[in-house]
């Protein structure tokens, strides 16, 4: 077993070492340190806690990247063998389930821990800058490492259970979103429900659920370490529980791997001719829109489900508002409006990023790019049709975001102004382009790299984007013309497209043509 595991481990590490992208990601992490340093310096200038601010930013970014990268990176550990049909070959070569899970996951985990390790020396600058102790730094890195190990093993479990990488990523992603949203949602719900409506045992479970989930929450733990150091230990329960849960996930993956793999191969070979349960309508005049909408994003059934889910979410907010204020109103007020907007905006962001990073990649995975290239459709038409297919799929999230913004405008605007919403929209479009571009170069790093690039790009893009409307206004006024804000935003959108989106679009087109010829 040891030789097999070692071979798999060494091979994966070597492949990782030879590929340029992991090194790019590591370089990006080092750059991130420099950037957060300058950010903290400008943000906390004149105070004595620059180091704390600097380290807080680093931790937040790491949690975000670990959570996003964990889904796309670790969830393919076993499924990539299933996708390639090589899992059975590994088993035939005498590799035990333990050798496979150990070999496939440990190398990735080590590679990811190296990403954390590369930041540790830089983070000690925070001690010099002030506001944080070296013990706090080490405790925080341990908490982050524990979170990484938990994410890696939970994703490994999804990878062992699911038959394809796509399904594994979807399950792992949904679980992560649920993990982060559930405490807040449960707390809000239990606070809003008057006593006596739900049975006592249910209320007890609902009341204790957020606390139970937050035991392993890295956000809570980092907050404890940085802001309440005196009352917490070096490791804390987050570290211990995360490691124990990770070990449990690993054990279940290993024990059940053979049975789950057999189930997949049996269902493939014994099912006979496969038929679809729900019929799909005839091909549309623009075939790639039809293809992406129906066969990549889930088509009308999924579209309807998302629309109804949006309705259910909004209705829940209305119901909670009614229970807490004793007044029925479709307009969400106070915190309810902006919370609902935040939920819909988050869903829209996640959907856009997932679709944009997967749409072109799905063609590469199925090796269909050259077949499509042979049709009379031009490259630009192919790319636009694929984007349009995904756009239809995000319409439910767009609709409910716009609906909330329109109906509960007052509450939403207490948190953000319209300019911020427009900047978010432009950043979302920018990020979707970046994700699409990265998906043409790298297999697993498209999403985390997009998050990284978008984070830095925000500071570059947001400034001009927020300034241009004012400049347009002033120029117009000097010419005795008083334009609407929409006009100013149109001008901004045009400049943003010309200087940031157009170069990306041309790059995507050229790379797509290059891949079509391979």
């Amino acid at each position: 077993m040891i030789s097999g595991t070692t071979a798999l481990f060494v091979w994966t590490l070597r492949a990782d070492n030879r590929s340029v992208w992991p090194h790019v990601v590591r370089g990006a992490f080092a750059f991130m340190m420099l950037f957060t340093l300058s950010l903290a310096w400008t943000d906390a200038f004149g105070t004595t806690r620059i180091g704390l601010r600097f380290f807080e930013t680093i931790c937040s970014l790491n949690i975000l990247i670990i959570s996003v990268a964990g889904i796309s990176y670790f969830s393919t550990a076993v499924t990539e063998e299933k996708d390639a049909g090589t899992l059975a070959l590994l088993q035939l070569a005498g590799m035990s389930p333990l050798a496979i899970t150990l070999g496939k996951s440990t190398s990735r985990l080590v590679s990811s821990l190296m990403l954390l390790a590369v930041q540790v020396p830089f983070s000690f600058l925070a001690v010099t800058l002030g506001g944080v102790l070296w013990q706090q730094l080490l405790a925080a890195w341990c908490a982050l490492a524990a979170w990484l190990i938990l994410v890696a093993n939970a994703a490994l479990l999804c990878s062992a259970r699911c038959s394809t990488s796509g399904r594994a990523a979807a399950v792992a992603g949904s679980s992560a979103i649920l993990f982060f949203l559930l405490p807040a949602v449960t707390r809000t719900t239990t606070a809003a429900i008057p006593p006596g409506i739900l049975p006592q045992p249910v209320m007890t479970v609902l009341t204790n659920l957020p606390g139970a989930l937050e035991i392993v929450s890295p956000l809570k733990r980092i907050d404890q370490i940085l802001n309440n150091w005196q009352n917490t230990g070096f490791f804390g329960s987050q570290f211990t529980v995360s490691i124990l849960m990770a070990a449990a996930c690993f054990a279940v993956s290993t024990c059940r791997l053979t049975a789950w793999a057999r189930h997949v191969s049996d269902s493939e070979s014994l099912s006979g001719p496969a038929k679809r349960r729900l019929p799909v309508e005839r091909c549309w005049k623009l075939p790639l829109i039809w293809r992406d909408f129906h066969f990549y994003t889930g088509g009308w059934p999924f579209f309807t489900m998302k629309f109804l889910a949006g309705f259910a979410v909004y209705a829940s907010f209305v119901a909670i508002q009614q229970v807490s204020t004793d007044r029925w109103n479709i307009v969400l007020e106070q915190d309810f409006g902006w919370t609902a907007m935040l939920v819909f905006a988050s869903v829209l962001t996640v959907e856009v990023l997932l679709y944009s990073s997967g749409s072109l990649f799905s063609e590469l995975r199925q090796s269909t790019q050259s077949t499509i290239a042979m049709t009379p459709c031009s490259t630009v038409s192919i790319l636009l049709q694929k984007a349009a297919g995904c756009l239809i799929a995000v319409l439910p999230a767009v609709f409910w975001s716009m609906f909330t913004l329109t109906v509960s405008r007052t509450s939403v605007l207490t948190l953000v102004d319209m300019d911020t919403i427009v900047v978010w929209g432009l950043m979302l479009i920018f990020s979707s382009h970046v994700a699409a571009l990265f998906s043409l170069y790298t297999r697993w790093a498209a999403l985390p790299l997009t998050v990284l690039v978008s984070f830095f790009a925000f500071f570059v893009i947001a400034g001009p984007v927020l300034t241009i409307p004012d400049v347009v206004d002033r120029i117009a006024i000097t010419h005795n013309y008083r334009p609407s804000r929409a006009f100013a935003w149109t001008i901004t959108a045009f400049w943003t497209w010309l200087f940031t989106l157009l170069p990306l679009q041309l790059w995507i087109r050229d790379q797509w043509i290059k891949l079509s010829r391979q």
Partner: protein
Amino acid sequence: MPAITRNTVPAISVSGLSHAFRGHQALSNVSFCVLPQTLHGFVGPNGAGKTTTMRMICTLLQPNKGEVEIFGSNVRQNISAVRRRIGYMPDHFSMYRQMTVAEYLDFFGTAYGLTQVQRDRVIGDVLTLTDMDGRRNDLISGLSRGMQQRVSLARVLVHDPDLLLLDEPASGLDPRARIELMEILRELRRIGKTVFISSHILSELADLCDAVTVIDRGQVRYSGPMDLLLETTDQQPLWNLRLTTVLPGIIEKIKALPGVAEVTEPEFSNGRDFIIRSAEGLTGNDLLRALLPLDLPLASFGLQRRHLNDAFMDLTTRGVPA
């Protein structure tokens, strides 16, 4: 095979094609011609440049040097016109596995600009031709490899191209699926398509193709009629004689005939097959005339052709290209 006349526009005309990838010369001055309505084989060892040539013919790759014309249209200048006349099947599976067979063909029919009525008719026709009529509502992911290959072939035919470029269509197929594929290709030639097929299965190509191009290390070693390639190169031709029954001592009797230089029995002949080398200047008729007095139970008599494997081995160089 149609004769080359002044008015025949070649289906494919490749002249002086050269291409290099990162310093490696993949193709070097490749020239050959494929006549319309023929089945033209394209063979060569791994790494010989077959797929590169194919991709240049189907407009996916621009050559560094040289010209390719499809039915007289230059692939550099008339890309869209050329693409409408060709159907390309790559050497790897390139399918939307989550679609049904009919949806997959409907998708490509639409991409080629066919109306719904045209698509309905064409999909029915190509499914009948590829014998996939009964599987039109099956998901592609549930089909066997041979059936997926048939669906690929059906996809290539959806826009009714004049020229089919098939890169290793028989690779990975079981014998039955291969034989059925070859039957479909014969049928396609019969209905007037030109088929340019690359394959490693030489025995089937020899029976199937009218002409062949052999490529090795980026250079064309032979391009022309299959018969010409398979003719024996010896000065005295070899003749193949097959009897219906075994006759003891027949070899000696044939050897004693005038004009017979040598008689051998091929391996695994069961005593009924003989290879006869005739004397210099003797024709097949002369030899047959000499054999008739023996009153042999004749099953067949004909010129012994070389096997394509032998011709291939003679034309190509041993070893893997650098």
